[in-house]
């Protein structure tokens, strides 16, 4: 039975509060005030268990920030803090509610009160907390990096509403306790605690009994044992019986101000080094019931300081104030004390700590270390009451049967009465009557309900956390998979990556405009599902310009979000490459997978990870190259003929066929003109036919070629076919789909900007030109001809780079001899690359001058040969 208590939900509000804006305050007699943090305040009567009033703040330019309530029996003043938009400063306005309240009491149904600006009596900038002591209203505000405690005299007669400012005390903010930039936020977030401490007994009449306001004192007022009071606040304060204001500041300082002492100032008492949540007095002795023996200060992170009187040793003689530190488990959301216990809520549980269990007075003097250890042990074992999500507590009350009842406000806006089990130790011994049993069962059920609710909340939380973990694990697996393959085996070809992209370049005609589009296909051959949050990002930029210093070249990025991309699936996306020219080839296409943490963690959780520079993980997949050969629009007559004959091809629709034929006719006409006049530039590449046989044979064997052709012819066509059809650099050309087979060794095509190019593949012997000691080599010459210099350069480069891959693919046995070739080829390739760039630049300026180097029409003939 231990630790179980009855929770009775009295009422429920439709709001979810936060610990800093919602407030619960006991007011006059049986009234409880509830501030929701919005523009409404409720008054709840605990005896009738119903709302007696609702106050709505409908001040035109004001917004309710956080109301604080204060009560004194004779003149009930209700105060609120509101945010004022007038000059964009925070203000405190105090509404004097005396008249309104008397009206509430008389009516039976909940009264609706509208609070207008007439009720506002004090404007205090940056106000955070309030306290009413007698006829003095204290407002603690934060302004210009210092705390300011202002004292106002409340009017005696209710007619006049002038609050006279008596004085104010300021205390500069200390930085360093809470780290710098968050300070400003927390300064406002966590409100300072203001309480009032009186000396001596509650019953002791004040020296001057002019005011009757001290008859009953409420939550924020405590009576402290006179000696401790004297020790802490001085003899002067004790002599004139002055109440002392204690401020627990969010920067961890505990300060005090004797209210009536002339020349007094805010003085430092203790530093808790964490925001102070609660200050109160507890531990009353049976022998001395009027006042508390111990001052309790609780910090946000669970630090507790107990301030008691220490009896001095035999040599010191006099007593001194003893500060004992301890640490409670868990954060403290809110707290309250009764005569012997400290109650506090961690947000997930309500705990109670017996303050009398700590080291006794006589023990304190003996050994400091021992007592602090003892205290630490005592503080570490608070009793759980199994009530969750309490964000504010009202003062505990003792019912007539001696039970302790707490009034709590849950985060969901439930007003709960928590009845603590009666005398936890001796409850077990006493025989319970049947009615009590029934009640106990009810309590038990209620407690079970509470635990059940708590459990369900925790379950959903765990579930979502698990989900996130699983998701993150998947992400981690994928990133490992992708990064491992790049790191460990750099030479590994593109094909090896389990998730990769391949593409297809294709010309299409849209709105009378030819455009080259690239269709990328993402292939997931990994065992993992790419879940929501992954994005495929494709960046396209020109190969040649990416290296140049300018860097102004247009790189375009496309991103495609993925939705549960399962293993084995493919995703096809299309993106425009060039629309009618203006793009320079070859182009590099970078594919990468990007994962954004935002999808998993959510915005506010991400803020916590200060270490993260960005919220994204980027995993490069592979790089594709779209070169001139991909960008060609082939219009060889053989191809068209083939096209028309093979009607079985379903994919070629009539319009496209028509367009193509039309195009051919047009370009064919143009070609003849060019042939006569302008076909000036050409470039050639010689490839050893033996090498081609070695490498292409394997490839061409599966191509259905009529065997009647001669070997050389077949090699030539094979090479041409290979050049066009094979997926070089991960990119295929569109005509591969059309399955056209090249019958002749000459291909006429159009470049991306409409230039006419001609590719000729023929057999040639270069042996004569080469050194005489080797037998003449049978080679195949690939010749590129065009009127456009750019086209020749580009195609030359494209052909060279393909041939290089061919060389790489050459059988192992030839590797020793071909390494040299390889080297030569690479050099040639580089030369071609540089020269094409160089030439492009030069020709732009020199074309008009007609440089003699280019006027002869043939500028390059790279010989690929065995040296």
């Amino acid at each position: 039975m231990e630790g179980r208590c009855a929770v009775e939900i009295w009422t429920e509000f439709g709001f979810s509060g936060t610990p800093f804006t919602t407030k619960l305050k006991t007011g006059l007699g049986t009234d409880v005030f509830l501030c929701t943090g919005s523009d409404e305040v409720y008054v709840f009567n605990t005896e009738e268990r119903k709302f007696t009033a609702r106050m709505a703040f409908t001040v035109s330019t004001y917004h309710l920030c956080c109301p604080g309530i204060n009560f004194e029996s004779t003149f009930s003043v209700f105060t609120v803090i509101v945010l004022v938009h007038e000059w964009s400063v925070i203000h405190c306005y105090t509404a004097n509610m005396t008249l309104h309240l008397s009206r509430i009491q008389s009516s039976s149904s909940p009264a609706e009160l509208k609070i207008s600006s007439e009720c506002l009596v004090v404007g205090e900038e940056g106000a955070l907390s309030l306290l009413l002591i007698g006829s003095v209203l204290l407002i603690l505000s934060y302004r210009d990096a210092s705390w300011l405690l202002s004292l106002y005299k409340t009017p005696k007669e209710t007619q006049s509403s002038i609050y006279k400012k008596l004085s104010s005390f300021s205390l500069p903010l200390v930085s360093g306790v809470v780290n710098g930039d968050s300070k400003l936020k927390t300064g406002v977030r966590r409100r300072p605690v203001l309480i009032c401490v009186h000396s001596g007994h509650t019953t002791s009449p004040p020296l001057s009994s002019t005011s009757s306001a001290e008859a009953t004192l409420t939550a924020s007022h405590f009576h402290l044992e006179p000696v401790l009071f004297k020790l802490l606040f001085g003899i002067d304060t004790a002599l004139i019986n002055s109440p002392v204001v204690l401020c627990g500041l969010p920067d961890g300082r505990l300060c005090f101000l004797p209210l009536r002492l002339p020349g007094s100032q805010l003085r430092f008492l203790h530093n808790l080094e964490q925001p102070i949540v609660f200050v109160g007095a507890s531990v009353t002795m049976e022998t001395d019931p009027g006042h508390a023996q111990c001052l309790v200060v609780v910090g946000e992170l669970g630090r507790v300081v107990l301030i008691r009187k220490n009896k001095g040793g035999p040599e010191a003689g006099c007593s001194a104030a003893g500060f004992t530190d301890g640490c409670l488990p868990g954060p403290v959301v809110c707290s309250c004390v009764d005569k012997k216990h400290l109650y506090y809520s961690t947000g997930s549980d309500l705990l109670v700590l017996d303050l009398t269990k700590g080291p006794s007075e006589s023990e304190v003097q003996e050994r400091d270390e021992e007592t602090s250890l003892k205290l630490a042990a005592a503080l570490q074992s608070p009793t759980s009451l199994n009530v969750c999500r309490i964000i504010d507590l009202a003062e505990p009350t003792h019912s007539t049967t001696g039970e302790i009842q707490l009034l709590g406000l849950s985060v969901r806006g439930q007003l709960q009465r928590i009845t603590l089990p009666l005398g936890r130790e001796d409850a077990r011994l006493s025989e319970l009557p049947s009615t009590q049993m029934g009640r106990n069962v009810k309590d038990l059920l209620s407690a079970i309900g509470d635990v059940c609710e708590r459990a369900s909340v925790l379950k959903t939380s765990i579930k979502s956390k698990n989900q996130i973990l699983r998701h993150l694990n998947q992400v981690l697996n994928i990133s490992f998979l992708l990064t491992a393959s790049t790191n460990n085996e750099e030479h590994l070809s593109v094909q090896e990556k389990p998730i990769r992209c391949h593409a297809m370049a294709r010309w299409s005609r849209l709105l009378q405009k030819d455009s080259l589009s690239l269709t990328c296909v993402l292939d997931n051959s990994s065992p993992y599902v790419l879940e929501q949050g992954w994005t495929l990002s494709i960046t396209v930029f020109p190969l040649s310009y990416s290296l140049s210093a300018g860097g102004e070249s247009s790189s375009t990025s496309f991103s495609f979000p993925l939705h549960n991309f399962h293993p084995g699936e493919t995703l096809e996306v299309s993106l425009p490459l060039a629309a009618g020219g203006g793009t320079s080839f070859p182009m590099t296409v970078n594919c990468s997978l990007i994962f954004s943490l935002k999808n998993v963690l959510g915005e506010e959780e991400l803020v916590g990870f200060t270490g993260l520079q960005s919220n994204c993980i980027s995993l490069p997949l592979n790089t594709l190259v779209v070169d001139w050969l991909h960008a060609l629009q082939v219009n060889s007559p053989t191809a068209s003929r083939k096209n028309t004959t093979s009607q079985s091809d379903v994919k070629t629709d009539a319009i496209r066929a028509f367009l193509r034929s039309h195009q051919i006719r047009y370009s064919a006409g143009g070609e003849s003109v060019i042939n006569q006049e302008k076909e000036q530039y050409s470039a050639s590449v010689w490839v050893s036919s033996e090498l081609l046989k070695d490498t292409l044979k394997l490839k061409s064997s599966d191509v259905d070629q009529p065997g009647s052709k001669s070997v050389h012819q077949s090699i030539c066509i094979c090479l041409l076919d290979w050049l066009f059809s094979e997926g070089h650099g991960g990119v295929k050309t569109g005509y591969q789909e059309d399955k056209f087979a090249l019958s002749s060794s000459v291909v006429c095509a159009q470049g991306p900007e409409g230039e006419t190019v001609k590719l000729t593949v023929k057999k040639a012997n270069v042996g004569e030109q080469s050194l005489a000691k080797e037998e003449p080599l049978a080679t195949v010459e690939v010749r590129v001809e065009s009127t456009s210099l750019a086209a020749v350069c580009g195609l030359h480069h494209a052909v060279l780079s393909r041939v290089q891959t061919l060389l790489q693919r050459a059988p192992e046995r030839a590797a020793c001899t071909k390494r040299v070739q390889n080297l030569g080829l690479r050099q040639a390739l580089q030369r071609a690359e540089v020269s094409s760039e160089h030439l492009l630049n030069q020709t732009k300026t020199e074309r008009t001058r007609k440089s003699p180097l280019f006027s002869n029409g043939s500028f390059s003939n790279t010989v690929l040969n065995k040296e």
Partner: protein
Amino acid sequence: MSNKTCQPISLLGKWVQENNELVNKWKLQEIGGNTSIPGQNQTCLRGWSSEFNKLLRKIQGVPPLADHTQLELSVLYNACVCAISQSQFTEAELLLLQSTERALQMTGNNTLASDPNVFWREVLKSVGNTALNVCIVHLLCLQWAIWLATCQLNMINDSQMDLSSLFETLGDGLGNNRRSESSEIPLLLMDTRKLVELLQICTLIAQGAERLSEGQSSEALTGLQAALSLAAPRNLIAYIHLLSGSCLAQMGRPQMALQCYRNALETDSQCVCALYQSMLIYRLLGNTQAEIEALRLLHSTLILTSATESALSSVQLLSPSLLLPSQSLSSLLSVPSALSVLHELAMRCVLHGRVSEGVEHYLDLLATLHSEDQHGVKAEVPLLPRLPELYLEAGAALLMSRLPADCMVLCDEVISKTLELLPEKLILEHQEERGESETRDVNDSVAVLLWAGAAYLLQGQCYAHLKDWKQAVTHYTRCINLVVKVCFKKRVTGFQSQISSADMVVKNGTDLCILKKLKGLSLAGRGISFTQTDKLKEALRDLQLSVQTSPECVGAGLWCGEVLWRLGRRQEAAACWEKTWSFNKESSFEVLPLYLQEALSGPLLDTMELRQRVQGLGLT
């Protein structure tokens, strides 16, 4: 406003309208005195400031145009007035200089000096006699105000010529400013003529105070006399009288100074500092009656003003207090709080023989301290003594006016509060000087011990007064027991040694001195009480110890002789008396607290009779 009259309102017209609306709103508020909500004024000011700044930024958003200059400068003036009123001097000055520079770009004068004095001279020269001149002069006034408020009197002195030429300009231009109420003219927040007048008088006051603090009284006086001819608010005229009085006092002419203070009071009855200063002069002159009278007046005035002052707080731009921040002036203008004055009054009364009056004042003081309405005022310059001391003083006063029962109540209060805090043993480190600035600890154990001791001493004296000798002895003994708990430790370079109190060089006013006096008085009191109960042996021991501890204690010496006489040691008695009489009664009167006065010690011996006895002894 008049949107319908001028169909397409130009940007300029709109801005002028906006400015004028703001100014009119302000004026309305000023008249209305919307001050029922404390804390509102400063916020309002902030609001106005931001409004004017917004407007100024709007205007400055377009490149400087000749048409806009007047408006821009007027809005600048208004914005700066708000800023200065909020004590944002550096911001105001920066705004002033930058905006003036910008506005003047159209006059073609782009390179302006960085030195403010040269800057303004150049600005004035460049505008010449154009319509802008008046605007610039207004702005110069604000610069002047900033200098004044930031105590840069040298800057004002340097540009004295320019400033004096301002008045003429303004004298002419004043008509222009108010010539019409048309909405075309941008209005100003503060009347410039009033501002100049205020600045003039404040400058003179500040200069006077500065010179006074430098000791150049006669020069200060001539300057101040010149200022008297100026038109100024009443309280500032009173300041001039006050300053003149202080100059005269410094020059050694107290009577003339008193006359000046009187003038100040006649000009402004709220000028309490004049009253305070005259009280100080009376004290200097040794005129106790007048001093007490002045204190009484001061106290009643302070109570009255504190009741009325806060109700009168109004929204005022550029108040004199803002323009007169100088340290020397504020020290002159500062007046102790009503409580301190009351304490002073009570103590003076008691010390100067008006005991019953003094008791009244003490009781008033205690009642005020206990009242609900008393609230901690900020630390004042002459601090009130610690409250236990106040209690003891009041107790002593009560005892002097033969009210021992009441005295005992007060002492009981002190004893009960100090009871648990008394140390078993205390080591008093002898410090050559105890700095006044030393922060008073909440519970200084030495002080606590001394308070408790003094309370017991007073109680003993009360019982002696009631002729309850047994009780008296008990209380004196308690006091002695407390006092002997203190050990002395003298700090000698290198090592510390404990020495007896007799070897110490005693300085007046220190804890040590008080302790010795306490010891002497309590021993003497106990000795006298023993004498009364015919325990002559004990009496002699105590009295001799007392004389040893504090030789200046006359009563102890005389009673010591008396006891010796009674014991039949007549020669010794005579010697003792002679010694006591010969002891130079240099009064340590002022320094010791009221409750350690010897007059309370108990039954007195008739000196004449003793002298006769000595003479008789000599004859025989």
